[in-house]
Every structure is written in structure tokens, then in C-alpha cells.
């Protein structure tokens, strides 16, 4: 080797070896921590989406292959890379570091082999399909929630009831509303519900001219109020106040209650599907969705159809999601 070339090598020799090592460390850090962190920032989920261990292995193998190509790309590269390695092997940095490092590497390799051979005691994996459709009856596909889109006759009846100041409420909320009305006897009974659509409806009612669209929006608000009450009574314990699958009971279930605020849960399915799931619960699931792990009750045994639809409407509303539109619409 010429003297000049040797000088250049000497100038950068440490960098070549350590930059390769550093590059591998950085790639590992990106895959292990940066991607999950960015995913969390992008998806807004309360937990990061970690890269699976097998995938990390593949990325690292690719990185090592790339580094190998880089090193063997030219003789100079290779020499630069090997320079400190050779010096190390010849004990030019001292024989103690050489003995220590090589012993540690041997021990590490021995441990890895031992660890790989060790019989693992991990839970047998059972893959689970979250939205199974193998036994989803076609007739549910096109169902529309009558609580968020009430038929005209019902809106008419609602207007009549509101004119009489006697709107029908389900028993579960009626008791509390009556107590409120005793304390707040002035004004319309619906003023217990201080949302914009109800306020607009009450203003029109006072003026005498009520439009169907406004009345319908107010009726939906009433249904949502009832749905929220039913949700609080029946579903809250597991799915939580904020429909985040974090109710007071959630930690007791290995298969956690569904978080409806997650993208990819209730917004990716049609309403009829939700209705079917609420109706048949865990026992109604096909095998691919591991029915034996699901604590979801068969609500058809406890709730009426109307109650189930009201709860579903409230869930979508609380989660600030809209259901998928059935195909062919």
C-alpha cells in the first residue's frame, strides 16, 4: 500500500468501523423505538404500535447485508473497515481487551444458543379475527338504525307530544327527568336536555311553525339521551364512560372490551353488524373469533330491539364515529 493511501486510511480508519456499528445501532433504534413513537403520534392511539420481533430481525438482517455490501464495495472500504479489527486481533490495543471482548462474545453466543434451546412457556397463540363474517346473516347487512333515522310518522307523533308538553320517555330516564321537572317547573319538559338541536326545536315550537327536519333532529337527541342512559346502565362497566373499552371491570378480562374510539372498530362495520354482535354476543361468534374468550353477553336475552338500537346510536355518538355504509348504496 502506498504511503499516501495509508495516511488517508489512518485519518478515517476509526470512523469506518465505528460508523458501520453506529449505523446498525441507529437502524435498530429507529425500528425499535422511532417507528412505534411515530405510529403513536400518527394514529393518536394511547399506546405505540410496536414493530413485531420477527420483522425487526428481518430489518436488521437487511441492514447487515447492506453494511456488508458497503464494506466489500471496494478494497479500500474493506481495508478501512478491517484495519481496527485486525489491530484488535493482533492485540495491538492490548491483550487484556482482546481476551475480555472475545470471551464476552463467546459467552454471549453460548447464552443465545442456550436461550433458544430453552423450552418456552408462552401462552399458546390463538389468532383472532375481530370482525368475523362467516356466520353474519345477510339480512342484517342493510339494517338501518331507526333511532338515528326515525320514520316520518314517529317524528309527527313526537311533535304532537312536544306540543302537549308530554314527550314519552323510557322508564329508566323518566324518573330522573320528572325529579328535575319538579325543581324546574317553568318551561318545556324537553329543556332538561340543553343541546342545540333541542333548543332550536323548542324555539320553533314556541313560534308555532315546526319544520320536520328540526323536529327529527330533536327526536334523535332524545333517543341519544335514552341510549346514553341505557349504555351507562348496561355497557359502561366494561366499555367505559368514554366508550374507550376501559370500564371499571375491563382489567378483569384478558380479551379486553372493545374500544369504540379506535379507528378500525365500529366505524369499519355496518350498523346491522353492530346490531347482530350486540344481539348474540360472544356465544354468537364463529370459531375464528374465539367465542370462548369473549365476555360480550347475548343482549337479546335482556334488551329489547329498541333498547339495543338506542345503545348503538349512543355508542357511535359518544365515539364520534359513523358506521360504514352498506355496499350497494
Amino acid at each position, binding site marked *: 500500500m502506498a504511503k499516501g493511501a495509508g495516511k488517508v486510511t489512518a485519518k478515517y480508519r476509526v470512523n469506518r468501523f465505528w460508523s458501520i456499528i453506529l449505523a446498525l445501532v441507529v437502524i435498530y433504534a429507529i425500528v425499535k423505538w422511532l417507528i412505534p413513537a411515530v405510529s403513536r403520534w400518527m394514529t393518536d392511539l394511547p399506546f405505540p404500535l410496536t414493530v413485531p420481533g420477527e420483522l425487526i430481525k428481518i430489518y436488521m438482517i437487511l441492514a447487515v447485508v447492506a453494511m456488508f455490501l458497503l464494506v466489500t464495495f471496494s478494497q479500500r472500504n474493506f481495508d478501512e473497515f478491517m484495519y481496527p479489527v485486525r489491530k484488535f486481533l493482533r492485540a495491538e490495543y492490548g491483550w487484556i481487551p482482546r481476551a475480555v471482548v472475545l470471551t464476552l462474545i463467546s459467552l454471549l453466543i453460548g447464552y443465545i444458543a442456550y436461550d433458544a434451546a430453552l423450552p418456552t412457556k408462552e401462552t399458546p397463540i390463538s389468532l383472532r379475527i375481530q370482525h368475523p363474517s362467516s356466520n353474519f346473516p345477510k339480512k342484517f347487512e342493510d339494517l338501518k338504525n331507526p333511532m338515528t333515522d326515525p320514520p316520518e310518522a314517529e317524528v309527527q307523533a313526537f311533535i304532537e307530544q312536544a306540543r302537549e308538553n308530554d314527550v314519552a320517555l323510557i322508564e329508566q330516564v323518566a324518573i330522573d327527568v320528572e325529579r328535575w321537572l319538579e325543581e324546574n317547573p317553568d318551561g318545556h319538559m324537553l329543556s332538561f336536555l340543553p343541546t342545540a338541536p333541542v333548543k332550536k326545536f323548542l324555539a320553533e315550537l314556541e313560534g308555532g311553525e315546526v319544520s320536520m327536519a328540526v323536529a327529527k333532529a330533536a327526536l334523535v337527541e332524545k333517543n341519544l339521551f335514552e341510549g346514553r342512559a341505557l349504555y351507562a346502565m348496561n355497557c359502561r362497566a366494561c366499555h367505559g364512560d368514554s366508550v374507550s373499552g376501559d370500564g371499571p371491570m375491563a382489567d378483569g378480562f384478558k380479551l379486553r372490551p372493545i374500544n369504540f374510539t379506535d379507528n378500525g372498530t365500529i366505524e369499519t362495520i355496518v350498523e346491522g353488524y353492530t346490531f347482530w354482535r350486540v344481539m348474540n354476543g360472544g356465544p354468537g361468534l364463529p370459531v375464528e373469533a374465539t367465542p*370462548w374468550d369473549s365476555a360480550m353477553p347475548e343482549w337479546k336475552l335482556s334488551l329489547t330491539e329498541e333498547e339495543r338500537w338506542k345503545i348503538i346510536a349512543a355508542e357511535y355518538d359518544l365515539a364520534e364515529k359513523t358506521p360504514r355504509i352498506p355496499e350497494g348504496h
Partner: protein
Amino acid sequence: MRFGAFKGTASKPRKRARLPVAIALLLSLAVGWSVPAMAADTPSGPIPEATPEFLEQGREVYVKRCSFCHGLLGDGEGPAAEFLDPRPRDFTLGVFKFRTTDSGELPTNEDMFRTVSNGLPGTGMQAFDDGRIKNGLSEDERWAVIAYIKTFVPEFDDPEFDPYKKIISLPANRPASSEALIAKGREVFEHAKCWECHGKQGRGDGQKAFDRKDDWGFPIRIRNVTFPWKIKGGSQAEDIYMRFSTGINGTPMPSFVKALGEDERWALANFIESLQHQLTEHQVLKALKVDGELPEAADDPLWATAEAMDVRLAGQVIAAPRWQNPSIDLVTLRAIYNEQEITFLAVWDDPFKDVTHVAENELDPNELRVVGGYNTYVNPYDVAVRQLENFRDSVALQFPAKPPKGTAKPHFFRGSSSEPTNLWIWRADREAAGETAVEEATARGWKQEAKAQPEDQQQVSGQAVWGQGRWSVVMKRPLTTEDKADVQFIEGSFIPLAVNVWDGSNGEHGMMMSLSTWHFVTLEAPMSWTVYLYGVIAMLVAGALSLLFIWLAKRERKPQDEDDDEAEAEA
């Protein structure tokens, strides 16, 4: 492309200087993002002015998010309230539990903000901080709803009750937790007699009377302070310090501001924090193999050598009658086996030992099994008779009756008619009466009661002990039996396992229980010696290769430029 770009960068010395900066930047971003979002339970500013618009905004939030428990009138009488224990707060009395103000005083705005943001763990009150819960409430919405809640309490307008004049702050000097500090805290715990209510081990078992009531007339449940997930006011030493400095209004929990100095209280807080249980995370219980006799008693020291597995439980809410106020939410399991038998130890905290059972007080499950009834949950205040000497304590281990095919299992709640489960039910009243305490039963779904196996197929024996607010129950059976409805324990296989627990004085019996989903138990086959062999071989090969490389490096020094072989080896 990527490779080329990298190469370009690496070969230009000037650009290389930027590399460390870039790495530092990337790493700092990675660290910044991987830290969980800080819980925003401290507001960025004071509460906004309570204009009519702001109060109306607060009322809308309240009606949508709070009224179903706390009631439209704020008196804790919403439609869901009567099914919850602890009962949702009645704001109109102006008694607030979790504060940073003197005992008996109102809370500060920030105290209320903290409660709304963090919730009260172990109760129906959940966190509403939108930094933690995606569709929780924004800071502005939380302030609005707090402003509205304050309208239920006229005292907030009275300058005489200004909570800001009665603030209790954390001690300026808060040494970090240490053994000495914890030991000092233990002494304070002793002489301040905390154990009179909370029990010597902090399990809430010291209470003298069962039927004490709080200011609202509801039963008092003394907290088990060893469960951090159930400590309402927060589980950090700072939170604990506040609880016994401010007292808990409306309950017998007093303030110790006058009785104890700041440093004593800080030590006590650290002692209480040190009692907190650390949950195990695994889902597979490894049964320990022994050569000799299996332990008979629950306090046998041999149990300590077996690995423990914590099993979290939930109330039985799958079918009516539903139960959302279980008092037991953790059972710790251990298992030991020898050539013939296997024995399980189940340990759980229960402040009262209930060993009587009055069958005629049992709830008729069909009463709540109606479509479209008012509710299918059990009301803990009048439907369930919650008193001593009424219902027994009990525990059941559940296994599939048939060996699982693939990953398929019976449903974790009692299986079904085609997929039955095998139950080992231990009952405290039987144990106390000196009868066979464990019954083997077959369950075929929750719709029918589990059926006891015939007398001659009852092979599980049991032994139990209760002390310091804790049950320890041992159940033993031969590894294999002739009975087709029994689980069979075979080395190396994963056997699904679930737990049911009943706390009698909490009104629990029948379907009112705590239950777990499926976990696994496995009988560890003795480890093969080849496992060590592989490790040793790998180590020797690595060592030999190292020597080879050294030899090659040395040899190469003399005749230059012969490195292709090493390149291969190095890769």
C-alpha cells in the same frame, strides 16, 4: 437507492459531522414520543369566569356525560346510580372527599379538576382527561362542567368557606423512599393506629363493625391499601400523604394534620406506598415438580418456592343477574405436583370470614332474566342482602372437562352443553362444619346450575385458612382419573384454567361472583440436559473461531494482502 445515498454520505468527510447530530435528534424524538403522554390533571390556568354561556356549556357536558350517575339535579340519583357501590356522589350536600384542603372544607377548583381528570380508581368514576381518553373532555369542557357542578353547592359562593384559605401543601422536604423512611413510616402506622381500620397488613380488615355507614347512609368499605388500582385518591406517596392530611370528608377517615408532623406523615405515605402489590404479568401458571410429599397446609413453606400467578377478576356481567360490585378482583395461584398428585393454592384478600350460608336468602336468578326489564344488574343496596352470617365465601377452579382440540376451549363462563367444564368448588361453610369442603362438579353453560359429580368420583380434597384479611385455600387431586368429565393433568401440555370467587358478606352467591377469563396451567417437564449442551457447544465454537481469527490476523501481517477468506468469515 437508499444504499447508494448512504454510501455517498459516508464517503464525504464533511457531511459526516452531521451524522451524530442527526442521530441525537432522532433519538431524542424517539424518547420524547415513547414516553406516555403526561396526564394533564393540572390545568394550564385558573378556572374561567362562570358566565351564563360557560355554565350552559357546562350543563350540556354534565347532562351528556355525568347525569346518568350523578342525576340531573346533581344529587347522585341518576338511573345508573343505584347499581353502583361506591355510590355516585351527591354534590348538593357540599361534601367532597378528595381535596388538598383541611378536613371538612370545600375542595379547590384544582382539586375538582384533578378528580374529573383522573377519575377515582376502584369506583365507577373514570378519568375524563382527553389526553388519556380519546373522547374524554378538553380542559375547557372540564372547567365548564366543574363550574356547573359548583352551582349545586351554594357554599362555594360564600367567602367564609373559601377553600383557598385552608390549603394543605406537601412538605417542602420530601426525601426519596428508602428503607429507613419506610421503617419510620411503619412505626407511625403502629402508633397512629391506622391498623385499627386498615388492618395490620393494610388489607382493610381491621374494621370493628361491618355495618358502618358514611354521611350519605351508604355502607363503608375500608380500602385495601395494597391494591394501587383501587386507591381512589391516587396511589403515589404524594396522593397518600394528602389523604391522611386532609381526611376524607363524609367518612370516618380523619385528618392527621394535628396528630402527626409533616415528616411523620411523609414517612407514613412512603410506608403505605411500599405495601402496594406488584402484579405478575404472565398468563401461564407453571406447576412446580417435587419428588416428595405435596404440601397439605396453606402455610407450608414449600409454596413459596412455586411461581405465583396473579389472576385479575371481573364481576359476572355476562348473564342476568349481573354483578358489577365484586369485592374480590385478584386471586393469586400457585401449583405443585409430584408423580401422583397435583395441588393448587388460591390466595385472595377478603376482610371478612364468612362461613355460614342461608340458602333461603338466595336471589332467584329468573327475577332479573327478562327482556326489556328495568335493568338486569343486581342492586347492591336492596336486592342483594349484604350482611354478615348470610352467605358463605367460596372459590372455584374451572378447567375444560375434555382436552381442548387445537386452541378451541369451552366458554370461560361455565362452558356450554356441548363443551362442559370441570369445576372444583370449595365452600367455607362446609369447611367450617368439618365436611368435605371441595365439590367436583360439571357445568354445561350458565343457564343450568353446575351438577355435582357422583359421590365415588369426588377426588379433590381441600384445606383452607383465613387470617389477617386473607383466605388461602389448597385443593389437591390425583394427576389423572378414570372419570371422563374430569380434567387430566399431563406433563408438558397447556391446560386452560379459570377462577370464580364469591365474597359472602358482599352478598355474593350463585351468579353474583367475580370471575376470570381463561389462563393456563402447565406441568413443567424436567428440563433436558441437551439445553445446556447446545449452549456449551455454541460457546466453544465461538471461542475456537476467535482463536482462528487471531491466528489469521497474525499470519496475514507477514505476507500482505490476503484477506478474502477473513471477509467471508467475518460476515
